[in-house]
């Protein structure tokens, strides 16, 4: 046998991992990537003649497909099918999202905040179903070709009430050893910091509140966090921020810019006309 160079070793390792779909409705196309607790492949679904994504789940993550299937939400990739490969590994099939992960999409601030709000919406929904994601980071947010925002990779997700151990990625991980919904709030705060590296004071306060060391000092829910970000976008008062008189005036001025310009123009014209007719 001739020498196997390093790229051949990598390909053989991939071949070793590749799912055996020979007796199923799916044909393996290509690997897409490896996420939390499994590898994802693009496959062709012969029954419906479409491309879908198939995730082969690692040992110890068998609950993932059931967790994701419970989360029917426009911001969460839907599960179509699940099963077991001939070698015993479980898999599930989901929508194939064509797009780019968030960290590869350059976004200006208002747009970045609108994307963030949609992430908050998906996470608030998951929390309402008793599920915590545990690995929120830009790599796990997909921006679809038509602007869809999807939270991916629920491989380490867990029941919120089960006191699951800490998981995820350093830098986005909450400090507490047992994960609750508040831990996802912390990760959302870190995500916001990543999206807006130089925030204005009200937004900085939102990030600070979301990333407090003590879970009880953070926002109570992803919906509360989203409400404050929406307030910031709308120019109304941000709950997490104690604003000075000057800041309040500047905020009101920004918010009511058009009215202020109209009133000022009116007053200037009235003054000019007043002096004109007095002459």
């Amino acid at each position, binding site marked *: 046998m001739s020498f196997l160079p390093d790229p051949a070793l990598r390909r*053989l390792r991939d071949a*070793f991992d590749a799912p055996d779909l020979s007796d199923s409705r799916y044909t393996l196309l290509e690997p897409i990537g490896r996420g939390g607790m499994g590898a994802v492949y693009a496959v062709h679904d012969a029954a419906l003649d479409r491309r879908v994504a198939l995730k082969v789940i690692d040992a110890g993550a068998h609950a993932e497909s059931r967790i994701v299937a419970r989360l029917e939400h426009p911001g969460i990739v839907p599960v179509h099918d699940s099963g077991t490969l001939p070698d015993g*590994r479980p898999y599930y099939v989901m929508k194939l999202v064509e797009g780019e992960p968030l960290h590869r999409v350059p976004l200006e601030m208002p747009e970045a905040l609108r994307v963030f709000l949609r992430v908050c919406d998906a996470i608030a929904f998951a929390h309402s179903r008793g599920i915590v994601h545990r690995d929120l980071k830009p790599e796990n947010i997909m921006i679809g070709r038509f602007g869809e925002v999807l939270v991916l990779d629920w491989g380490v997700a867990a029941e919120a009430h089960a006191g699951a151990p800490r998981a995820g990625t350093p830098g986005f991980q909450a400090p507490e050893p047992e994960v609750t919904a508040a831990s996802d709030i912390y990760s959302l705060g870190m995500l916001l910091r990543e999206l807006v590296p130089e925030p204005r004071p009200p937004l900085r306060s939102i990030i600070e509140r979301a990333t407090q060391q003590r879970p009880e000092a953070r926002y109570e829910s992803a919906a509360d966090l989203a409400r404050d970000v929406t307030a910031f976008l709308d120019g109304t008062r941000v709950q997490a921020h104690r604003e000075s008189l000057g800041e309040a005036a500047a905020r009101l001025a920004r918010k009511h810019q058009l009215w202020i310009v109209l009133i000022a123009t009116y007053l200037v014209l009235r003054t000019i006309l007043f002096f004109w007719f007095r002459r």
Partner: protein
Amino acid sequence: MSGFPTTRRSTVARIASIDGEERRRAWEALVSAYWKPVYKYSRLKWKLDPDHAADLTQAFFARAIEKDFFRSYDPAKAAFRTFLRMCLDGFAANEFKAASRQKRGGDATLLSLDFQTAEGELVEHPAAPNTDLDALFHKEWVRSVFTLSVEDLRSLCEARGKPICFEIFREYDLDPEDGVSYARIGERHRIPATTVTNHLAFARREFRRLVLDRLREMTATDAEFRSEARSILGAGFE
């Protein structure tokens, strides 16, 4: 499937067998998996010239067979490949201390090992400067496991009258050309793309089994087998 073992027993356990033939086959399997990692490690770690490294490799395995080095292996303490590398380090240190090249080749049984090929691989694919030598030994061991498994797969496909399965595996996974696709391979072999995917699935399924068999053969306990499988095959292995 003539002459093809469906499962392999641990070589590490078999080298302690009282059956001489069983012991001989176990040593053959062990040497075939480890001689290249040992040779390349010796060349790079002690900067030995090719002849000197070949002598050391020969002498190490010959002495190991003669003195039954590996009988003292305790799976609770380390993986077998780590134990073997530590034995090699100790053996080489003693040899260098004695500085006796004649003694090294002296009464050792010469094994039939193709050092010229191993040297050619080192020259054609040199290790990066400052390579971690433990990592290099591990990588060469992985290369050995895969190389032997690919050979096993070729033999198995031929024995089962399915050489096309190996050929498709070679064209798609082992040595693909740019833009390789099921359709292109199908055209070349005049078979539909669905048959290509079925042949490839067969080859991959057997390759997976053969790699695990090789690993089972090179480890002593189930725990070591699982740990080694995870170390070379990643988190996907169960």
